[in-house]
């Protein structure tokens, strides 16, 4: 497919979509959102890119293989689940540390965030894997 309109709009939309996905990811901290929705939005953005150009172009754009993304994501989630075990808590319990940053105030960082990051990567990786397999046929 090579629609000029789609390509032109894509230049505008793709960065916005990716930013939005990151926004959703962090919003999941305390509100509706999170790694899963964020990952899906990012995946949808890449899908649009593959539609406007070709799958091979998408591969060049991402450079990392989606399966690697997927496995790194799984690894991060696993580690996030295991960290609390070191502190003698149950698997997947939340561990939080608070970082004080000048101007921003306190930011609570915890294993749930890390877990969500893993989920985000897994979702992006999985959607890309499925997408590439289907579109390459």
């Amino acid at each position, binding site marked *: 497919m090579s629609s000029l309109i789609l390509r032109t709009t894509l230049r505008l939309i793709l960065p916005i979509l990716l930013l939005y996905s990151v926004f959703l990811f962090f919003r999941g901290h305390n509100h509706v959102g999170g790694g*899963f929705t964020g990952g899906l939005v990012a995946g949808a953005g890449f899908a649009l890119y593959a539609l406007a150009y070709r799958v091979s172009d998408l591969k060049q754009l991402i450079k990392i293989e989606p399966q690697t993304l997927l496995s790194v994501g799984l690894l991060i989630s696993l580690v996030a689940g295991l960290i609390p075990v070191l502190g003698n808590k149950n698997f997947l319990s939340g561990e939080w540390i608070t970082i004080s940053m000048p101007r921003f105030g306190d930011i609570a960082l915890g294993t749930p965030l890390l877990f969500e990051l893993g989920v985000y990567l897994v979702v992006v990786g*999985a959607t890309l894997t*499925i997408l590439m*397999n*289907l579109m390459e*046929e």
Partner: protein
Amino acid sequence: MAVVVGWLYACAVFLILRRSVLRLIIGLVLLTSAANLLIFTAANLKRGTPAIVPLGATQPAVGYSDPLPQALILTAIVIGFGTLAFTLVLVYRAYKTLGTDDLDAMKSTDT
């Protein structure tokens, strides 16, 4: 709601009984959706406040809705999404290898 669930089940069963593989898959997708809606209905899902305990309180506000069915349905949808993607690839590959989408023609493994 119950009528919709019933109707979806009926459509799904009809589609599953067809010979074409693609219809079979669509039928299975409908069946999953029907099951999701069934959870929705059976678990009495309704509008309400989020089941979050407000600051300083020990109980969530009155009239909160049960969050668990939502979680169940979401999980089921995600799993359904994964299996759907896989089955679509499978059907496509099978169509390419076998050259047919008629279930009646896929008998070489039966005897």
